[in-house]
């Protein structure tokens, strides 16, 4: 599992999860998105902070428990 920092990207699609799986019960509601990375490839990511929409630009924040976290570029 790569833990290297990721570059910025653009939201391809997103949702806000209200009915989480058992492991993430305490996180809900949380936003999930597929981010198209500027450097190529796509990652399924968590979004923290402001909600994003399709087409929004996002910056990488960190990896937490194997998942990439992004935030909206303001």
């Amino acid at each position, binding site marked *: *599992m790569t833990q290297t920092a990721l570059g910025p990207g653009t939201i*391809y*699609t*997103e*949702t*806000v*999860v*209200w*009915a*989480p*799986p*058992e*492991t*993430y*019960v305490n*996180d809900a509601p*949380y936003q*999930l*998105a*597929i981010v198209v990375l500027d450097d190529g490839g*796509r*990652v*399924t*990511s*968590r979004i923290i902070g402001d909600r994003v929409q*399709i087409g929004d630009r996002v910056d990488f924040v960190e990896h937490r*428990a*194997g*998942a*990439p976290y992004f935030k909206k570029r303001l």
Partner: protein
Amino acid sequence: MRPVAIVGIGRTKFGAFPDRDLRSLGIEASQKCLEDAGVKPEQVEAFYLGNFAGPSFVGQNHLAPYIAGGVGITGVPTTRFEAACASGGSSFFHAFSGVAAGLYDVVLVTGVEKMTSQPTPKVAEILAGAGDVSGEGKAGATFAALFAMIARRHMHQYGTTHEQMAMVAVKNHSNAAKNPYAHMRKVITLEQALAGKLIAEPLTIYDCSLISDGAASVLLVPLERASEFAGKPVRVAGIAQTSDFFSLDQREDITSFAAVTNAAEKAYKAAGVTAKDIQFAELHDCFTIAEIMATEDLGFVKKGEGGPYVQQGCTLLGGPRPVNPSGGLKAKGHPVGATGVAQICEVTEQIRGAAGERQVRNHDIGLAQNIGGSGATAVVTVLCAV
């Protein structure tokens, strides 16, 4: 390859049955099927079981002989097939292959799932295991979340509305109310469907299929021997199982399932038909957007026109091409491993003209479409009257 026919079907009612275990459901559907076909257990030459997650849901492994033995079937190959929500369709595909290739003459296929013994967050976690647990799973994706992301993109690219998705739910609940095997025989209104509890935006509880217990079975034989059996035969005119890259973030366009278009192309070719010949269909509406997408991927309408298609009433029970006369996964219920086999039961019963209150008008040729995960497996089957 020799022609293959279905000569028996059997189903349990779908629902939440705290007093029933997985084995008793599998046995009931199997026995009803053998009875329909007029076949004794000792005549069965191979047993194919569709089951997604019995080991996780009820802690039981080695499920095929576990159920077959309970039916009185021993001394033959008994095998479980797992392909997420396409487990049933995949077991049917492989059973078909065995008969078509001439390996066996009398083959029983049973699909079963017992889901309601676990609380909903646990069910969501087990189902999420059909996705990429080391990728999208770690980000917290449920299946509802994956299909919600598909829905968002479909809305963005084609102008599909949540109201159109809700219309799928209203239609399928209306059909299920006419189906004695259905889990939820309750008519709902468009307002109710739109105002449901949010699961993964924009999907509400009414966009999601049900968590159900249930089983379904079919009996396959060579077409040339069909007249020896009691059940009215229906021909398996064409069938294909195909696959795709596993997760949504590995695909260029998530508003279409390549595995479905690919399987449909192959099944249509094998059956010598085109999309326009399909008179009715049982489609994999695990979420309402999935039914809309399926009508596009199967070529019933052009890409992006699935929303207007349901809105115009084209897929209603009395419409030009009924979709999910059974009530679909949405309202008939979705005991995962049983689903693909139950679709075949429904299409067979419709072609036999024996579907009672929910009988479709034109019923010579019907289709079943079953997908696994977020479209990494697809099985498409064309059935026709003999």
